[in-house]
């Protein structure tokens, strides 16, 4: 039968919200354990191999991409040469794209998070007329596919003349109904009404109560919503594809897709396969590394939406 094992990691961030102090789990030693481990290794290989490929491919020049084995290095290590070429090709437009992606993701993500914190707090801690009705509409809107809004948004923005400006990407990215839902649910649990009352009795105004009492308690949810909305904007493809035509304004996702389309269609001179792989590799690093170093935050946070 199963044996009892270690009270599993008590500081596991996943449970920090829940705070199960001691967990113990039964498990059968031996065969099943090995079977599980082998299964995990196979699964991990499937998920990692394409990323490994991208790294290897970024170190090859175009000739090497065609001739050498896909999953191993070529004779010469061309990564730095490729990076240098990214600085010269089309006047280094790649770095401009990467910078645009950063600006859009942070402006959109931070903005969406601020709006979600405020609205979540408002819905959770104030009773005002129409609150339930409005919140129900917001909750229902989570089910509206945002891509269905891209074309009407494009038409609207072009009427106001903000098509082909950074605002055309940033402003629609401020919308995060799911973020509001998460913040509301979290605020309701994490910020006790009594604490707010106490602050008010002590003479703190509503704004001060919000900043000094509520906000610090909301940190885990804030990190989650920020992460989800930054990743969401960083990922966005349909919206910038529709609202931006000026090459200087593209985010890196749309830009690299454009290079790929050109390389597939074009003649020798337009084929920049080595720049596509190197560019793609560099563009995934910031997010991959942040996820690696911010594990403590996202592992607990991403699940917030599912907790009841």
């Amino acid at each position: 039968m199963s044996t009892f094992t270690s009270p599993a990691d008590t500081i596991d961030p996943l449970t920090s919200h829940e705070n199960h102090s001691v967990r113990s789990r039964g498990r059968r030693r031996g065969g099943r354990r090995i079977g599980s481990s082998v299964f995990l290794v196979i699964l991990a290989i499937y998920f990692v191999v394409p990323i490994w490929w991208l790294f290897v491919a970024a170190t090859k020049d175009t000739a090497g991409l065609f001739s050498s084995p896909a999953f191993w290095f070529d004779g010469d290590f061309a990564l730095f040469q490729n990076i240098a070429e990214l600085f010269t090709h089309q006047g280094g437009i790649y770095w401009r794209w990467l910078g645009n992606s950063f600006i859009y993701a942070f402006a959109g993500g931070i903005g969406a998070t601020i709006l979600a914190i405020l609205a979540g707090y408002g819905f959770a801690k104030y009773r005002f007329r129409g609150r339930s009705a409005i919140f129900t509409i917001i909750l229902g809107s989570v089910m509206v596919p945002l891509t269905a809004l891209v074309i009407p948004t494009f038409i609207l923005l072009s009427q106001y003349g903000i098509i082909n400006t950074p605002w055309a990407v940033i402003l629609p990215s401020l919308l995060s109904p799911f973020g509001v839902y998460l913040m509301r649910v979290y605020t309701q649990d994490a910020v006790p009404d009594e604490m707010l009352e106490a602050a008010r009795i002590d003479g703190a105004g509503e704004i001060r109560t919000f900043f000094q009492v509520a906000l610090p308690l909301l940190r885990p949810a804030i990190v989650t919503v920020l992460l989800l909305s930054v990743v969401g904007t960083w990922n966005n493809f349909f919206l910038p594809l529709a609202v931006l035509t000026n090459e200087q304004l593209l985010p890196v996702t749309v830009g690299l897709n454009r290079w790929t389309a050109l390389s597939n269609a074009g003649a020798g001179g337009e084929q920049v396969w080595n720049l596509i792989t190197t560019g793609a590799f560099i563009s995934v690093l910031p997010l991959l590394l942040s996820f690696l170093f911010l594990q403590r935050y996202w592992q607990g946070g991403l699940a917030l939406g599912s907790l009841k």
Partner: protein
Amino acid sequence: MTATATIVAPAGRAPRERRSRLDVRRQRWGWLFVSPFLIVFALFLIFPLFYAFGMSLFTTGLATGTQFTGIGNYVKAFTDPLFLEGMLRVLAFAVVMIPAQLIVALIAALVLDSLVSWLSKASRLLIFAPYAIPVVIGALMWSFLYSPRFGPAGTLFELFGLPAPDFLASGTVFYSLVNIVTWQWSGYYMIVIYAALRSIDPAIYEAARIDGANGLQTALRIKIPMISSSMVMVITFALIGTLQFFTEPVVLRNIAQGAIDAAYTPNMYAYSLAFSYSQFNYASTIAFSLGILVFAGSFVFLFLTRKQSGLK
């Protein structure tokens, strides 16, 4: 953790005390806190929706100019084989892709939950890694791997003396897309399910063990039912995402024009109508119809699973 807002009636409305003058003043603060979001919500969700609906009621012709045509565009859309085929295709994607992602995510999460070792920690991270990669880049990577020119398939199959399969033919590209999406999203769903598993009180497993349940029985009879609300959430998100399928087929179309046409999914159809043919009225009709169908679909799904999800 009980304060889940419900679709129909958010909790916590019970009047706790009589409304005082203070409450009235506080009402105003509530409005102040929610209004910045409501402005964005109105401008970029409500207004575009109504605008799309409005646009869909008109038709612009070269000779006729813009004319009110009522539901004419909808009649056209729901008899348009390109739109209907696209809808059927994304439904087929939903039927194949969502179970694929869910099974991978669920099994991975169950294994991770039963195994505490450095290996399980490392694989949790590695399986999740694709989530950190933008969808476009993920699709680009796979399109390289599928490509007969760069891809490893030729070499791999040569080892066994077999011809390499064509991942980008019209019959196979469907599954190539399923693979990309499964690769990209399973890890995220796994993390959500895993967290839900970790929040189950371990005393329940203890009870099950004493009653003689083995690992598989515990997983099937206790763990899965207890995390059904997160499963419903994951499926809902996967459903909404799949029906608006756009990025991956657009990227793969770069190298598989023969297998993926411009109207492969309803979103791609709407995009090409708007930006290749400038048929903005009809494109709005397609976008609005897709929106309604997705909304209705996820609503029906949430309604059918209301018992499992705890939504009332």
